[in-house]
């Protein structure tokens, strides 16, 4: 015989709930008496307090193993990546020549980005370094000795410097400047003591055709060794990242052009299958003209 479960009426259910919330006979609130609740709250207070303390302690111990100035491990950063400015949502530089608003935001960003590169600021803060060699600054026994940075003047970017430029980095004329920068990696001697430069090209043949001519600043897309090594945010306060500006002169309008720029340096591999930004950067360029 199967004993049927009695169906509880709605009222009974409510009644049961009421009793669960407050049981006047046993003085239980939610199934526990006051003392029991007090115990349980006290217990969890102590227990979780203890766990927090324990976790904080172990975290503190762990942080002792980490220096504030240089990372403990850099194995993931063997190959620095490249990036472009202006920074856009999908790595695409789209310019509607006639539509000011389409490129104005890029221009604003660039203005802001290039501000620290102003010659006056550079002169004021940074050293003039000897080109063609690394600017090494050993601690010489003084712990955490602050490091000086080399000047990278905005004027080095030529017509892409945007200084007194009515064309707004060429965006208003459909000849935009795109700035290439290489990711900072602490204590990385880029180029392995040989000169290096950035080159750009269309990704595929048709892209190359559509890309047209471009000029680079500094000339030839060179990046000087004196900007390396980087000593980290804490030491190298005024470090100025070297840039390469590329001005595209006659991109075929109304076509999306895939551009890829890569750095040619002895110790930077640019053929990583998985990391598409290792030593290179790919972006889309589209000039819309009516």
């Amino acid at each position, binding site marked *: 015989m199967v004993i049927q479960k009695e169906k509880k009426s709605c009222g009974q259910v409510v009644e049961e709930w009421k009793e669960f919330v407050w049981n006047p006979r046993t003085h239980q609130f939610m199934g526990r008496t006051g003392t029991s609740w007090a115990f349980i709250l006290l217990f969890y207070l102590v227990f979780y307090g203890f766990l927090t303390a324990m976790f904080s302690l172990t975290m503190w111990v762990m942080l002792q193993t*980490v220096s504030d100035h240089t990372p403990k491990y850099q194995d993931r950063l063997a190959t620095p990546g490249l990036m472009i400015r202006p920074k856009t949502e999908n790595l695409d530089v789209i310019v509607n020549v006639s539509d000011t608003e389409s490129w104005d935001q890029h221009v604003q960003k660039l203005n802001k980005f290039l501000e620290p590169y102003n010659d006056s600021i550079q002169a004021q803060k940074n050293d003039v370094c000897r080109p063609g060699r690394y600017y090494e600054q050993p601690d010489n026994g003084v712990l955490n000795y602050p490091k000086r940075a080399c000047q990278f003047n905005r004027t080095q970017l030529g017509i892409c410097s945007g200084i007194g430029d009515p064309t707004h980095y060429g965006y208003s004329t459909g000849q935009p400047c795109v700035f290439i920068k290489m990711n900072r990696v602490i204590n990385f001697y880029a180029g392995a003591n040989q000169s290096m430069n950035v080159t750009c090209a269309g990704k595929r043949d048709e892209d190359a055709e559509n890309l047209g001519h471009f000029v680079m600043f500094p000339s030839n897309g060179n990046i000087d060794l004196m900007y390396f090594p980087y000593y980290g945010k804490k030491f190298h306060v005024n470090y100025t990242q070297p840039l390469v500006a590329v001005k595209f002169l006659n991109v075929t309008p109304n076509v999306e052009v895939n551009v890829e720029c890569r750095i040619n340096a002895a110790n930077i591999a640019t053929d990583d299958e998985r990391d598409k930004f290792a030593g290179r950067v790919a972006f889309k360029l589209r000039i819309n003209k009516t």
Partner: protein
Amino acid sequence: MRQKRSEIYSVELSGTKDIVRTDQGDDKEKYRGLKNNCLERKKKNQEEDFQKELQLDDHKLNNRELEKKYGTNIIMGLSSTRAAELLARDGPNSLTPPKQTPEIVKFLKQMVGGFSILLWVGAFLCWIAYGIQYSSDKSASLNNVYLGSVLVLVVILTGVFAYYQEAKSTNIMSSFNKMIPQQALVIRDSEKKTIPAEQLVVGDIVEVKGGDQIPADIRVLSSQGCRVDNSSLTGESEPQPRSSEFTHENPLETKNICFYSTTCLEASTSPIGTVTGMVINTGDRTIIGHIASLASGVGNEKTPIAIEIEHFVHIVAGVAVSIGILFFIIAVSMKYRVLDSLIFLIGIIVANVPEGLLGTVTVTLSLTAKRMAKKNCLVKNLEAVETLGSTSIICSDKTGTLTQNRMTVAHLWFDNQIFVADTSEDHSNQVFDQSSSTWASLSKIITLCNRAEFKPGQENVPIMKKAVIGDASETALLKFSEVLLGDVMEIRKRNRKVVEIPFNSTNKFQLSIHETDDPHDKRFLMVMKGAPERILEKCSTIMINGEEHPLDKSTAKTFHTAYMELGGLGERVLGFCHLYLPADEFPETYSFDIDAMNFPTSNLCFVGLLSMIDPPRSTVPDAVTKCRSAGIKVIMVTGDHPITAKAIAKSVGIISANSETVEDIAHRLNIPVEQVNQRDAKAAIVTGMELKDMSLEQLDEILANYQEIVFARTSPQQKLIIVEGCQRQDAVVAVTGDGVNDSPALKKADIGIAMGIAGSDAAKNAADMVLLDDNFASIVTGVEEGRLIFDNLKKTIAYTLTKNIAELCPFLIYIIAGLPLPIGTITILFIDLGTDIIPSIALAYEKAESDIMNRKPRHKKKDRLVNKPLAVYSYLHIGLMQALGAFLVYFTVYAQEGFLPHTLINLRVEWENDNVNDLEDHYGQEWTRYQREYLEWTGYTAFFVGILVQQIADLIIRKTRRNSIFQQGLFRNKVIWVGIASQIIIGLILSYGLGSVTALNFTMLRAQYWFVAVPHAILIWVYDEVRKLFIRLYPGSWWDKNMYY
């Protein structure tokens, strides 16, 4: 019955891997209820049918009427054409096998049961998420597709596994179903033909020889010394004679009906038993067919463990779904995109569901089933393994289960003295005084006045195991004398039998006349045995110490006292007497004539009494005591006589030595039974007749109030009533049985136990478990295993649930604090289905912490498998500690690579943006997306290793729930260490072996990170030892109540 089983399995399976099934569960519940109702109705009808004892009146008809009714001719039989017509109308003469669930349905059930639904939902969410991504961005990453496929793969794999497990146990039972095709000798077209029994039709005239099975229900037309063994049908253990006379109104009792599937015995008393009869019922319309359908109609209770697992699945699925939805809402209100929130939801579901657990439970159960099979308990239904452990009432058969199922000489009375014979299984220890010359005479009678013989070719078989041709009593006497006197056949040869009168029910004695083995004594010896009072009537002298004394009143009185005493022990008593026939009256050449009785049969010399019983198995009293201390009530249910039942119950301890029944008290105080206070009696003996007149309430009262109950003279249907009564007490009832008539009760019971040797196929089919040695004591070992497995399953589940919090927290933190994802969904699956599997199975090998046979059976509604303390302790204590430990490893990896903990907060969006390839870390370095992703995978691996290391500690602490690990012995369970080793090895392979396979998201982790979580692991161990210490120190305290699971 098959159906029942598959249903149970579906739950178990549902056990084995389901996930999201809360709402679905409701549907199933409804469906189930519906089904039960149907069954109920059907069953009631059937029961009515059965109680009407079938509208059968063929036994009242004479041959002429029968011929007319069935359109047949007793001499000529049916014509072949007529037979073919009938066969077409009624169908073959075989039982319809119970409907079988198609394999594919069984398989599909595995795919949707338990947690599977949750995982299916997860998988579909993955694909939907990809669909949405794809529609907005053609180059969307395929990660979600992979994840969905992996989830489906997990569901399918666990489903296949569960299906395989089920199929394996189904195979065990299918071996019971094998039936040898039966042949029947039938008269058709005036010719005797042998045809397959399946083709028999109503009206066929069949001939059955001794030793054959009755091929259908038949009305006996003529019979020669035929007796049938109806034990499988009525529980009656004595063979019943069959003849063509109508002797009883009740078709079950009348002598002129033989039932399908009972056996026609080869009786030793007549040359060969044959019976000719007319087939009156075939196939499902036979009595057996009715019982079989009754059994399959009995509703199936879910096994306790199935209920527990369902309960557990509901808890986990409830937690998963509610946390999932809660955080979905939180995520949406935190302005996450709905798509992202969906993906979080998947992560939360996957983290919350212990994918491997249900498979583990199945494996654990089947391991125990294997262990039990070694101890002679063959478990057909895996879940029954645990049911036995929670059993609170055992309704046991008497014959064969509690007793040895053979008559054995228990007492002797001669020289005015009762002697006790050894009734143990081998009779080795006969200690009574055998020097008296009365014994010499008695033993001679026992040896000679006996027709039983050993079957030839058993020279090397121990005497007690030899097969014998002859009935139970004679067998007992034969073996008894063979043990005491040596070669009985040789003695018989030396005392050549001249003539004999076999036992028959009118004479109630058996007599034979022999030549003596003394060559100088030419007298004949007449020996006689029979019902004691009949024998005494024929005697005028009695032998005491070898000398004949006249039988006077006082000796007659001592005889009666002894007879009553032995009868009171429930034993079958036989009297023995002899007479040396005077040589002058009966010369050697005298020809004895048994029909003329030309020899004296009175004024004999009474020699002694001998009583026999089917003695209890020697292991049973111990087993009953164990049941007692384990809080299990043992109830004897037997078709036997109350006095015999009581005697056996007393000797095995079902009625303990100092407890009395109402009748005993009345007898002691010499007052009428009605005046006895019912409460004074601990024991009760209820007969079938009393039971018939009882209301259900009265039965309940008896079951509740008496500790020791014996049901005697019960019918099969009453057994079912008793089982139901026990179940109304909320008891988990185990029932033993062997006959076809037991199968409804076996089915009805929470666990039906069939006898492997004596049991009929129907009983074995209906049962959940088969006792291979028919021994009650094996049940007790089964109980022990069942209880152990319940405890160990608790440990397994606690172990498995713990890490779910450690897997879940990352997602919660990820959503709320925006850290890069600490552990990936795939990685979680590697823990749940990889590193954790062997350790959780290893816990099944854990020994009991204390004597589990000294506690009460668990209350099926109160002592849950997964109770609140277990969930709270696993989730909120150990689980949380684990999560913290794993986060520590994660933060360490990130910090040492340059992302200090504070830089990680709210980094999620930038971190995961594929177009941000110059993300700055704490030191001002810039990271491309791939570099970050690789670091993220390293984080996964680190988190994984953190959980792994702490799961080792978790595994060790779960060895015990109350005792210290050091009390339990750290190294006693070697399998645990195999588990730990497997965990570490799998971890190492994943990290260092497959670290280069990007799809798996594992990376080669620096060696030192394996040790970061060790302090937390030690903390877990220490904390748990403290918990157990307080539980032991303050039993019953607040701590005990809240912390003991």
